[in-house]
């Protein structure tokens, strides 16, 4: 099970946080601090896996943004790395050539995508197409507009 996902910039600014288990605010702050210092201190061309308490930390850097995922000990590191990559692909598909600014200014969208991809710490859907379809279907839905055909089209 995935415990949490953090996105932060090279300066250590948090861009996105998702916690899949109940954690107190204080603990969260501590984890964020630990993660940013640990991950940012890594040299280039070192491996993407770290140990932290009883968790495995998998991180990957995309341009100026670090994606940091914590998984339980029995999980596989490589596949978690691919989870990060798949999420980036999803973001890329949605925003079109995604950059850090997209995530900063539209972080709620990034959350929506994440919610369609991962849920409760497990992978929900791995098909890019299906995730995007679900996101767009909800995006289309506007105030006072509940016309049926959308749903039929987009879910069909």
């Amino acid at each position: 099970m995935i415990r949490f996902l953090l996105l932060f910039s090279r300066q250590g600014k948090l861009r996105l946080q998702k916690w899949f288990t109940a954690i107190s605010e204080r603990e969260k702050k501590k984890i964020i601090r630990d993660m940013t210092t640990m991950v940012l201190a890594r040299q280039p061309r070192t491996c993407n896996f770290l140990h932290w308490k009883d968790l495995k930390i998998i991180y990957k850097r995309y341009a100026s943004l670090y994606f940091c995922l914590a998984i339980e000990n029995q999980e596989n590191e490589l596949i978690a790395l691919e989870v990060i990559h798949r999420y980036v692909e999803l973001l890329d598909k949605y925003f079109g050539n995604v950059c850090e600014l997209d995530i900063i200014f539209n972080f709620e969208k990034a959350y929506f995508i994440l919610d369609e991809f991962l849920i409760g710490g497990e992978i929900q859907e791995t098909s890019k197409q299906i995730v995007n379809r679900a996101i767009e279907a909800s995006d289309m839905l506007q105030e006072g507009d509940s016309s049926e055909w959308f749903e039929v089209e987009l879910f069909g």
Partner: protein
Amino acid sequence: MSDVVEKTLTALPGLLSLDSQSTKLSSTSKLGNLIRGITELTSKHEEEKLIQRELTSIKEQVSSPNTSMRQMKELMVRAIYCEMLGYEASFSYIHAIKLAQQGTALEKRVGYLAVSLFLNESHELLLLLVNTVLKDLQSTNLIEVCMALTVVSQMFPKDMIPAILPLVEEKLNHPKEIIRRKAVLALYKFYLIAPNQVQHIHNKFRKALCDKDPGVMTASLHIYLQMIQENPEGYKDLTTSFVTILKQVVGGKLPMDFNYHSVPAPWLQIQLLRILLFCSTIFLCRDVAALCIHCVSLFFYCIQPLSSFPAILYESAKCIGNFVLSLKINLKYLGLKALTYVVQQHPKLALQHQMTIIECLDHPDLIIKRETLELLFRITNAQNVSVIVEKMLEFLPFLKIMLCCCIIYTLFIVLILFSYEEYTYAPDNEWFIETMSTVFSVGGDMMQPDIPNSFLKLLSEGFDSVEEDRKLRLFAVDSYVSLLQGEPGKLPQRFLQVISWVLGEYSYLREELEAATVLRLLAKLLDMKSTSSETKSWVLMAMTKLCEGGAGVSVTQEVCETYGSSLDTVLRQRAQELQHLSQDCELRARVLPRGAGLEPLEVDSSLSFLDGFVSEALAAGAAPYKAPHQRQEELAQAKALSLEPYGLSLPISMSSCSIADRQSPTLLSVSSGLSGDSPDLSHKGGSTTLKLDGVKRVWGREGYLSEREPVEESAHVEVPSPLQSPSQQGEADSSQSQTLTPIPTPQPEQEKQQLASSLFVGLGSQSSVCLMGKSESTTQRFRRKAKGTVSSSGASEQISNSLASTPSTANHLLCNNLLDSNITSDLAVSSLEQTSQLSQGPAAANGICDVELTGSDMSETSPTLIRDNGVVAADPAPHEDPDKLKDLCLRTHLPAEFSGLCHSEITPLCTNQTLDFSACHLQKEDSLALVAFIYNCILMFCSFQVSCVCDSPVQEARSHSVAVCQYSLTVKRPSVHVEVVGTASYQFPAGTPHSAQFSYKLPLTSFIRPLTVSTEEYGAMWLDFSHDTKQKLTLISDGQEPLTDTLNVLKKKLQLHVVEIIGMEGIVACRLLRDQPCLMHCRLHAGTLSVWLRSPVPDLPDCLMYHCQRALQEH
């Protein structure tokens, strides 16, 4: 997909542009302003100010009634942003819920998102969301249903699950796959937080597994993985389905968009593989192994679990090789990890990668280095120990940043040093002492206090050869003296303590070394500013041992003068001791005999020699002793108006005057008014703020109560002292044996191993590497063991800390030593008991064994039975048709004491050509007995041993005879089904040992017994119990009195005791063996039975509820 999007693009240009505008133009929005504002700031302080301003403005707008939902959405996004930056916006939580409730579509979506980000499942506000979720689940708008399901599967209050469960269940049949998928995931969430609630929909999960949509099927695998992990036996029938699915996935039968970089659904493959690994390994070996080789999983799934299949060992070895050699650093890392895992079973695999491993040791990446060291640790043996330790020591300084790793590695080193044939492993004395010095000075104060202790113990107990011991000690003295002559200020405190102890104890060995020199060196330590007072007391203690007239007198005298008036009481005491003993040679020889490290000192832990003094003092009117924490508590409680029991306990004549001196006049009147009476009265007489709850009753109606208290106190004092109660002894033993201190009496290796196995078999995970041989420990075991050591050393740390002074630590060591020898002598008697005590740890850790076997009672087949057997064996009939007769035949072997009791069906647990192992359980009034039958099918004599949680002694069974063992079971932690897991190991004469694993499952109801209480008692107990659960159950309504009927059914099926039925309500009581009560309150309500269960035991109500439900459904 693109064509769909295009369609919508053309159909709704307006909407879309609006949408894309919000994406691109966000820089002009308020959020954009905020974000830009923050990036322009330079200091943290300014940011704080800006955010606080922002939050205040959000707060204002949010609570204003004029804010539209649209604005609210915008506000909520900003609040989320502020929270992300680490500023609390708790005022907005309630508004997030409101937005989710009242908003439409997009606003609702943001509302739900905010809720899921702000709250966690234990937050109380979440209850307010339940109605919204309910409404949305029933909505005709699919997207709203999706949103509701999404939030439900992220978090939902456990207690409210029944409210939405039917709706979610219904969604499993929804025509849209996305809804079905989300419903399955929601149920998975429910399963995780409240497994009993979804027990009844298991067959629906099966339907989901067979869903035509791969997404739904994938989602259902989460549930199955969880369930199979908990009960691998229960889903054997599904194994073939999983294999088929895996085959289809690997065969590329899924739609293209499930591919990930041209690999067909890797996540799904891994998930399936993990499930299959939990299914019975025997079954799947060949089939899956063949499959694995073809599927990518082998590549992805790190080989760890896979390499446990011998069938694909070759393949995985090849794969590991590729990984290790890979230039990609991630793969290298995984390769090393896999190698570490495999190398325990197949040490040779490491050989071919020698060079790579050496290279990895110098790798710039610390993480890689660490993995390599771990790998090295696994392949340590007599030849390479010094090299490996050297490498590890090199690594130690780096680890200072990673505190925990440091501790673990220090442990590793010490383990290596102390393990195997103890220090014969270490090449020589010098090396050993030097290495330990490095460990101490580098590891420093971060080290477990256990390590110095074990080291000292090792030194004091020595090894087989007296001469060797002397040399070792001598060398230690030499090396430490030279260290002290250098720069002792740089050494860590722990090391200084070790040094001073060694010098105090053994410096006499070096004859040309004068005591005065050592004394001066030690006195120098005392003068250093950095020396802690704990170390100082060690030093003083060492000096006490050394002062022996002569030239040292002046030094000691000086020290005594300095510390004789120290503020630290411990130091002062040590200084006083030093002074007295240095003057009185005879006394010193008696108190601190030289070289008498091994004779146990007798410690009167109950301090009984003080009894006379205490009673005299009490008679003279002194207050009874109170432990500091008690005093503190009372002080805290008496803050408002301090009415100390101290005042009350004074003899009547004294009370008024002495209290008047110190306390307020109101108090005086109170205390004089009630002197000699029960403190209860003070409530009437005194002011209303009197708080006497925590205050001890010193005076009772019968008079003075304090007689009992000193006894209690002394019992309290006893705890930290070295002589412990049996259970603590057990703990101490375990910690001792885990820290791998040598057993003092020389014994053949065989015996040691037997001792180890008899002590540790039940422990499984903690089986000590060094005694059992390294090859047996797997990664998991190894990890746990390390933890176990840490925690146990924590325990002993407590002990030694509480003693805090040098001689007591020495006592501690001595005492442990004593215990060790106890074990060896009383082994036959105590080992069983201890194993069962020790076994509780792993039982909890594994989560499988919920059962504690208390006292195994093993009956060697009784003579009559053997005779029976003789008949059976002689008779050809059973050979021809053994199955038919087996049950009957086993039945006759039931021990005579059980003959009157009804027993369950005799279930076969495992069968092979040689052994037939079956068991049944019997319900006795006060226990549940598990009777195991072992039937030896072949014509050979065989000895065997059954180990569940605790071990049974080795038994022997002749050919075609039946051996019977019985256990008494109790439940440690309730769960719906209780499983006994164990291993039967057996051996034929001159044959290799075999073992067979078995598990025996029995429902919790077997442990339930009626509890006879009166209604009043019931009422009193009801309020005391903290764990409860409520649920509505179906009523049996075919008779006249549905309540009575239902309760009778429950009574019959579950062995409950119906206490009373009053009108529409009934109360029922039962207990879980042995004495864990559970109370049930039933009420007729609108055609259903609302049941409320309460118990002091967590989980018991839930489990019992499940069985009640089952019982009524089956009826």
